[in-house]
């Protein structure tokens, strides 16, 4: 009876920490632990493939190397940035257009939307595989039709051509992720109140003016959200490039994640690799706080910015 | 004393003072209404009694037992929420049975009690439905059934009628009154609607800004409002209250003058209920003349908004008002026994 009372007291007053703390501990142990270990490794010369490099403290040597002595890192960095801005822009335009088409012309979105979702739900590694097959130089269906319509010459292998391979990878990303933009923006469109549109019509605005002066401003939070989410995701891109080109030909598709992978798991230069990994983390963290501030802070805590489809 | 709030205060985390030193005592079996505008602390007072909110100061006792820090389940109270808070994943039957199940009552007993209360509330035919299949009125009854099924000593109701449409609200009101008569439990009912308060309560606690303005029977709250706030809050249209001054046995407010007796010289507010003002055909030495500004017919009554320079009054009469229009002169009498006097400084009633 007494223990029962105690248990009840705990269940009345101690629930919050009881329920919250385990998840925090879990994340601290399996995520923050490794993260701190990575930061530490960045200050050492740990190297699995060279002798006498067993993790001695080297201060900021790895950071100096990154800043002053590693053109390939910066090549990767800018390549990634170009990739991010390129795909996010194109996906946004296509996604917005498609969302508007669906919103205005299709009453029953559900079926079409469902089919549209297929590419983005596939494992990214499988997406890479699919396109590897399509773009194969010898018998790829896509390559065949490019040649058939005279868009590529007989010798061209898209994945083997340094000037074609990056646009190709970006196109694949657009194929995979445009549906995401469509899905979210459509959800946003469906959640908008009708009154501002009716007011604009009564004020005599034409469709394009309505789009510019009513739709876009109302959608702004959703657009910010979708751009940031896609930006963060694109920045982390690894799987598709890994299977499509592995960073090649040469270093023409060696984006940050791929480069970091190479330093750590091909060269086994773990001290320096930790610094590279840290840089990737840092950029994502910055984008992440922008996302949080932009989407959640202004909107008030955990408020939703839209309500939606289906 | 059965239930008593002793110097209860509640300050929320953001610094809002919801209740400021509330003292309130009432007997078992009463139908107590907590009445006040939004932000008056009426809901907080109810939730503190329920145990859903913890007071920041003071104590609550029930039958001399201090319950201030007891969790809700140990307080022997049921509650009806404004949005009914029915469990969407359970049937009506299970919703009602739930408090019994938690209290480990055996199944046969549960069944008979659920059916008994369902019969009282006339919801027997919906017992197998889900809350989403109920109309507002039905959901409300289920919520009441759930609160009463295990015979708690006190049944708390937080604006239970405000989500119903007008007609249904009237019906349900009557039914709650009958239910209280039949069951004899203590009801504590929160509302901002003075009409509900007047019709339901055996006593009404009028709250304003976290303080108790008056706690009395509906009759006395209406006829002897303890403060200017209560006077203006109770009654529709609201009581006319004129700020003015008494000098030499005459009350003056602007150009409005009225002879009064027994009032000392000095500033005072005079209140007269619209429905207690008399309309006279012709001016007498008891009447004051006004210009008719707007006439609204609320059959069988008429509301007259009248003016005398800067002084405006509302009058509610059952007279035939044909022939009156905007330019008409109106002669009003303010019988002695209908006058209320309030202090200008703190709004308290002058005895």
């Amino acid at each position: 009876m007494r223990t029962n009372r105690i248990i009840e007291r705990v269940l009345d007053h101690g629930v919050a920490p009881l329920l919250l703390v385990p998840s925090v501990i879990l994340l601290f142990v399996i995520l923050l632990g490794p993260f701190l270990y990575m930061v530490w490794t960045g200050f050492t010369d740990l190297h699995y493939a060279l002798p006498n490099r067993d993790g001695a403290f080297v201060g900021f040597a790895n950071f100096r190397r990154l800043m002053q002595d590693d053109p390939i890192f910066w090549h990767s960095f800018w390549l990634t940035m170009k990739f991010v801005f390129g795909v996010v822009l194109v996906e946004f335009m296509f996604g917005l257009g498609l969302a508007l088409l669906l919103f205005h012309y299709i009453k029953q979105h559900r079926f079409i939307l469902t089919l549209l979702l297929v590419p983005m739900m596939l494992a990214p590694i499988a997406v890479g595989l699919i396109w590897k097959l399509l773009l194969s130089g010898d018998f790829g269906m896509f390559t065949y039709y490019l040649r058939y319509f005279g868009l590529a010459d007989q010798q061209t292998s898209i994945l083997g051509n340094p000037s074609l391979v990056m646009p190709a990878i970006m196109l694949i990303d657009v194929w995979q992720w445009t549906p995401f933009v469509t899905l979210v923006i459509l959800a946003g469109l469906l959640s908008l109140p009708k009154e501002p549109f009716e007011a604009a019509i009564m004020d005599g605005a034409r469709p394009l003016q309505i789009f510019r002066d009513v739709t876009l401003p109302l959608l702004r939070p959703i657009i910010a959200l979708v751009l940031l989410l896609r930006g963060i995701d694109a920045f982390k891109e690894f799987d598709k490039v890994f299977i499509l080109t592995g960073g090649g030909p040469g270093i023409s598709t060696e984006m940050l994640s791929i480069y970091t992978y190479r330093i750590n798991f091909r060269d086994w230069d773990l001290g320096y690799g930790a610094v590279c990994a840290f840089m990737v983390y840092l950029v994502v963290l910055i984008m992440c706080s922008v996302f949080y501030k932009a989407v959640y802070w202004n909107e008030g805590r955990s408020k939703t910015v839209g309500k939606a489809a289906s | 004393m059965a239930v008593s709030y002793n110097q209860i205060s509640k300050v929320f985390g953001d610094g809002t003072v919801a209740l400021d030193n509330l003292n309130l005592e009432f007997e078992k079996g009463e139908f107590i209404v907590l009445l006040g505008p939004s932000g008056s602390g009426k809901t907080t007072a109810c939730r503190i009694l329920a145990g859903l909110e913890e007071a920041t100061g003071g104590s609550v006792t029930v039958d001399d037992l201090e319950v201030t820090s007891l969790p809700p389940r140990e307080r022997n109270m049921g509650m009806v929420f404004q949005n009914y808070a029915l469990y969407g994943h359970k049937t009506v039957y299970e919703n009602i049975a739930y408090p019994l199940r938690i209290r480990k009552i055996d199944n046969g007993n549960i069944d008979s009690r659920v059916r008994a209360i369902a019969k009282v509330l006339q919801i027997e035919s919906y017992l197998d439905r889900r809350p989403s299949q109920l109309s507002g009125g039905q959901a409300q009854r289920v919520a009441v059934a759930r609160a009463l099924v295990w015979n708690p000593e006190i049944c708390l109701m937080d604006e239970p009628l405000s989500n119903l449409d007008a007609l249904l609200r009237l019906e349900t009101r009557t039914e709650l009154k009958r239910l209280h008569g039949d069951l004899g439990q203590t009801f504590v009912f929160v509302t901002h609607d003075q009409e509900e308060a007047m019709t339901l309560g055996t006593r009404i606690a009028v709250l304003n800004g976290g303080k108790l303005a008056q706690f009395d029977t509906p009759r006395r709250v209406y006829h002897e409002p303890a403060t200017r706030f209560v006077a203006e809050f109770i009654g529709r249209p609201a009581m006319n209250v004129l700020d003015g001054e008494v000098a030499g046995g005459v009350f003056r407010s602007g150009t409005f003058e009225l002879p009064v007796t027994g009032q000392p010289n000095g500033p005072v507010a005079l209140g007269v209920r619209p429905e207690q003002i008399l309309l006279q055909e012709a001016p007498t030495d008891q009447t004051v003349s006004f210009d008719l500004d707007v006439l609204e017919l609320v059959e069988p009554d008429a509301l007259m908004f009248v003016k005398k320079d800067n002084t405006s009054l509302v009058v509610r009469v059952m007279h035939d008002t044909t022939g009156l229009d905007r330019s008409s002169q109106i002669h009003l009498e303010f019988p002695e026994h209908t006058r209320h006097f309030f202090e200008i400084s703190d709004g308290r009633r002058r005895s």
Partner: protein
Amino acid sequence: MAMVATLIAILILFLTPYLWIVMTSFKTRLDILSDAPLWFFTPTSENYPTIFIDKNYLPLVWNSMIVASFSTILSLAFGTPAAYVFARYDFPGKEDLFFFFLTTRMAPPISIVVPMFLLFSVLGLTDKPIAVILAHTTFNVSLVVWMMRGFFADIPREIDEAAMMDGHTRGGTFLRVLLPLAAPGLAATAVLCFILSWNEFLYAFILVAFEGRTLTVGIPGLVTPHGTLWGQVAAVAVVATLPIIFFTFLVQKHLVRGLTFGAVKG
């Protein structure tokens, strides 16, 4: 109507790449290597038994299921209670802690997997499914917290209060009343967790190399510079993706919410 037709045409074109890999998985080696793409052919089912039975890829499917299931269960078990606390309680630093959960969801795998690999090597956990399960839990637990917070917030507080008036403790209210009420959301969250874990590549690729390989990890090994057996590769890809497409249909209603961290309701 013309618009609808155009959209459907776009859609078909859009889905061709996936259809092509499905078709390839039913083609013979000769049909695959034909000069012009073959749209009509006599299907063969030989690729599936060859790769999954003869070449022993079946255990990879099993591994993927183990990893996805357990990381989902673990994430729900840890994340759901935390989400409830975020939805119902106020405490100092709450939003900062919430942001911390977000960062764990967003953290680039390549940054975390390096030290995680080192740590798990020390603990002797590499090449064991538990390593991948834990890794996947790091991002899924936050997804659960973010999604379920929204679902709990959608339940009116009065339901909690009614349950307490009915005789529950706070803990009992969570377990007996709120969890059942949030069950549809919980199911959607679970499916999404499963999908994300099933699809994940990098953590699995680094943390398990041989016995514990998941299906996604098995894919790159099949692609060689020359002589890739595309029929068999395609069969693996189909098995790796078809269940996911099915699941997607199940949770489509809540997909938007899940993929936007609860910012947009589905």
